[in-house]
């Protein structure tokens, strides 16, 4: 989104740019399937439409593109990475923009095409598209409402998990942000309230969100053990997040709480009966920033309750995950990082022995810990080049769609990732 930072020359003044509204914003290119979303986000326009204080229609757009390459000794990650030539099946293309009707009312949108092995299709999706209205603003506090498709406000990184420039590595820490739960974590269609308060003590950010999830076959694979004849319908999510940055902003701490409900409607025939899945997630986040160093840690606990589904598994399970990451900025261009990331799918069965006895599948499907070392080079604002090595024990976050034969998975495996990203 560099044109937002464009060096304004004498010939292209900001004012002349701003009057140019002939180029389409990404929000104008949504697909037909999203018309309820559009109707939803026009709603606040009625509330916030007023004679604008500054009669100026502002807009801007930008985007990014990234291409990754993965190579592993065993197991497939983002495509057939254990093949001799590695896999190129990891790329992202985003187009985003906004249209501001008045200083208090704005529409924001992003189209995203993402390919990540067999977990993400590369067809463009509406990543977010919402109306944002400012309800109250003073010099020390601000409140507003967003309506439409909104990124779920979870932890430090969820809202920008698919953007190479804002990710803490080539891949997100898979323990907390793992790809199989994308559908549940990515975004929801509904409304969100935000409140920000600054005082000499620090800055406080509160987000509260309610909406419908796009729970589909990835969620079925994750929660019901595979693609099922029936489907989840009207899955809903509630999210609350509090972030606090004590004065000085060296520290950032956060607490996110999520409650998701996925009613299952069986197909016919279906071995699963009508019921629902309740998911409660709690994420604790902390970060300490120095000029050349950043220390980040997040921890997640997810309680999942399968209600009346008649599945041959325990009906309650608790997942535990955390990661710790250190970033070191050597100079303006070079950065190195180290991360330890740990995921246990069932805290009562951390080594997966019980799971193995019950299912006959390898126990290492129930956990994963990942040591990562990475280097990042940013030759300019537009470019971001990274390389990472991962040493992984366990296969819990590997995609079951990239690895269909679960018995063939290796517990100890290594992964090399490269990525180039460019933004405009």
């Amino acid at each position, binding site marked *: *989104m560099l044109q*937002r*930072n*464009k*060096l*304004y020359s*004498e010939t292209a003044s*900001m004012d002349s740019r701003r009057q140019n509204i002939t180029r389409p914003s990404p929000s104008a290119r949504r697909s037909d399937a999203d018309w309820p979303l559009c109707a939803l986000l026009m709603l606040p326009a009625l509330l916030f439409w007023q004679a604008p*204080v*500054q009669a100026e229609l502002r807009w*801007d757009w*930008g985007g*990014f593109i990234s291409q990754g390459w993965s190579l592993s000794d065993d197991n497939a990650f983002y495509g057939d990475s254990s093949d001799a030539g590695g896999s190129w099946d990891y790329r992202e293309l*985003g187009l*985003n923009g*906004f249209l501001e009707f008045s*200083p*208090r009312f704005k529409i*924001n*949108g*992003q189209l995203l095409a993402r390919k990540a092995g067999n977990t993400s299709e590369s067809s463009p999706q509406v990543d*977010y598209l*919402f109306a*944002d209205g*400012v309800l109250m*603003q*003073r*010099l*020390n506090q*601000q409140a507003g409402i*967003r309506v439409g498709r909104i*990124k779920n406000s979870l932890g430090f990184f969820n*809202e*920008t998990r698919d*953007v190479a*420039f*804002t990710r803490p590595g080539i891949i997100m820490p898979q323990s907390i942000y793992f790809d199989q739960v994308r559908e549940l974590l990515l975004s929801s269609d509904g409304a969100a309230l*935000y409140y*920000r308060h*600054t*005082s*000499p003590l*620090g*800055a406080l950010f509160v987000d509260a969100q309610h909406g419908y999830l796009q729970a589909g076959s990835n969620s079925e694979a994750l929660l019901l053990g595979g693609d099922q004849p029936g489907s989840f319908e009207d899955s809903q999510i509630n999210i609350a997040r509090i972030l606090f940055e004590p*004065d*000085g*902003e060296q520290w950032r701490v956060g607490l996110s709480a999520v409650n998701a409900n996925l009613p299952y409607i069986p197909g016919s025939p279906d071995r699963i009966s009508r019921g629902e899945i309740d998911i409660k997630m709690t994420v604790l986040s902390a970060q300490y*920033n*120095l*000029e050349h160093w950043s220390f980040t840690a997040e921890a997640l606990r997810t309680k999942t309750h399968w209600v009346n589904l008649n599945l041959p598994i325990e009906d309650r399970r608790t997942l535990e995950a955390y990661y710790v990451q250190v970033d070191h*900025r050597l100079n*303006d261009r070079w950065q190195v990082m180290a991360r330890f990331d740990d995921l246990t799918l069932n805290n009562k069965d951390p080594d997966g022995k019980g799971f193995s006895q019950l299912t006959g599948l390898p126990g290492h499907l129930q956990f994963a810990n990942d040591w990562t070392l990475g280097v990042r080079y940013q030759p300019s*604002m537009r470019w971001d080049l990274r390389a990472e090595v991962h040493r992984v024990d366990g296969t819990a976050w590997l995609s079951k769609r990239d690895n269909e034969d679960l018995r063939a998975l290796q517990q100890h495996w290594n992964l090399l990732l490269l990525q180039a990203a460019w933004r405009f």
Partner: protein
Amino acid sequence: MHTDINSSATPLRDIACQHRRTGVACITLLYLLLCTASQAAPTPDGALAPLQVYTHPSVAAETLSKSSLRAIFAMRLTLWPDGTRIQVFVLPDKAPLHRQFTKSVLGLFPYQLRKTWDKGIYSGTGEAPIQVSDPAHMLDKIAQTPGAIGYLRQGQHYKGVRRVAAQ
């Protein structure tokens, strides 16, 4: 150009007018002069003048707290109390003046601001400020844009802008 820093202001302004019409050499000379004039502005003891926050004259605020300034430059506070939009101008991330402003006035590191702006851009919840190439353009933009805010080394004779005390 509004860089009426000292008695050489008149020739400077003349050069500024010509530069719109004439060639590269003139632009370079002007750039050097303007940079020297608005960036260095030495105090009697030879030290650099302190950094100050400046706004467009239409902005009513006379003092801004450090926490409000942080919220403004992080693009989290978007409206002045009268409802006009806050237009933030910054120098490039690597500019020494930007670093100094970020660190000494806001108490942040430039990379923290950049992360906050990026998160806003890519989640639709915010924007990045407008980046200007040098202090002379910063002064111009603040003077021309209603609701504008930026930072410069303190100068006694800046025209068309208003100094705001940072608390």
